[in-house]
């Protein structure tokens, strides 16, 4: 999932300092699961903004609405009635949501309430970690299911750098050297031969250098 972390209240309040009525839009997707931008968080943010503004003597009216997802046009359309009469929209979705909303509502300012961090998962309750760099050309089949692109600070593709020591990464001693993990796992699987294969150059053209990427599938079009 996409992991996001809410911006400080003061920053969000600053975006809407001249507004009198705003829509606080939660998202029912990833940010609900990582507990930063779902229905509950939208209510809390709206409440906190109202309290702050009332104390400042300039009350803010809020409307809250949580779309099942903010990254699908049909769910955005459903927001047409709730944006009526608001001066701005605050989106609690990942960076995709505010952009979808900005596109749908060209006359309304749309502000992000989140810093969108990474694609990852939960390690424990309240702990999320990055697992995939969205490189567009997955090589996990060669690396024992462990991603060197994102989990190695240098994104090294062909074995550890010289700084790998006792299984720890030279960039951060709290990190396991991912190439040590890859080696250990392939050894356990009896597949160290995979490391001897000369891998083709990684095709970075499928990564993020050519502007926004697109996936098009005729078979699911209606």
């Amino acid at each position, binding site marked *: 999932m996409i992991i996001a972390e809410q911006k400080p*209240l003061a920053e969000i309040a600053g975006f809407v300092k001249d507004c009198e009525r705003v829509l606080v839009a939660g998202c029912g997707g990833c940010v609900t699961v990582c507990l930063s931008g779902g229905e*509950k968080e939208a209510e809390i943010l709206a409440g*906190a903004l109202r*309290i702050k503004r009332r104390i400042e*003597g300039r009350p803010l009216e809020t409307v809250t609405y949580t779309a099942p997802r903010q990254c699908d046009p049909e769910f955005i359309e459903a927001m047409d009635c709730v944006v009526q009469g608001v001066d701005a929209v605050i989106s609690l979705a990942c960076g995709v949501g505010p952009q979808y909303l900005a596109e749908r509502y060209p006359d309304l300012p749309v502000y992000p309430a989140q810093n969108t961090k990474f694609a990852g998962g939960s390690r424990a309750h309240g702990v999320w970690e990055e697992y995939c760099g969205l490189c567009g050309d997955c090589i996990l089949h060669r690396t024992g299911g462990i991603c060197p692109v994102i989990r190695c600070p240098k994104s090294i593709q062909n074995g550890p750098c010289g700084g790998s020591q006792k299984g720890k990464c030279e960039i951060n001693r709290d990190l396991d050297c991912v190439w040590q993990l890859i080696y250990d796992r392939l050894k356990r699987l009896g597949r160290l031969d995979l490391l001897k294969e000369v891998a083709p150059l990684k095709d970075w053209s499928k990564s993020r250098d050519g502007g926004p990427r697109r996936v098009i599938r005729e078979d699911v079009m209606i």
Partner: protein
Amino acid sequence: MKGFEPQIVAFCCLNCAYSAADLAGSMRRQYAPNVRIVEIPCTGAIDQGVLLQAFEEGADGVFVAGCLEGDCRYQQGNIRAKKRLKALQKILDETGLGGERLEMFNLSAAMGVRFAEIADEMTSRIRSLGPSPLKRKWKGSAPE
């Protein structure tokens, strides 16, 4: 502030604090009449949004009272509530309302006297903090 009587909402776990409040009553132990009690099934069930709402709707102070640590009927409810309240106190600081208007207490069902003390403690804390800044009247704004 002269004549200020704090309005305090107490969210009390039915397994401990709520019974303790009851016991304080049966013992005829006097405590500050400023506290309004809301029974909840466990402090772990408390929603941060509801606590904010209590402030928005006029509370000068709010406290949540759960079982002694280690004694939660649901094992961890009170520990979780403690962390959630801490996070909410930070939000309250950021809003300008002040996290010190929100507090968590732990007590058992047998601690009627302690409940009365908590009610008094919280009332005097809020009395010294003064009315909630949400009750401040602004020029030109409608009276609350």
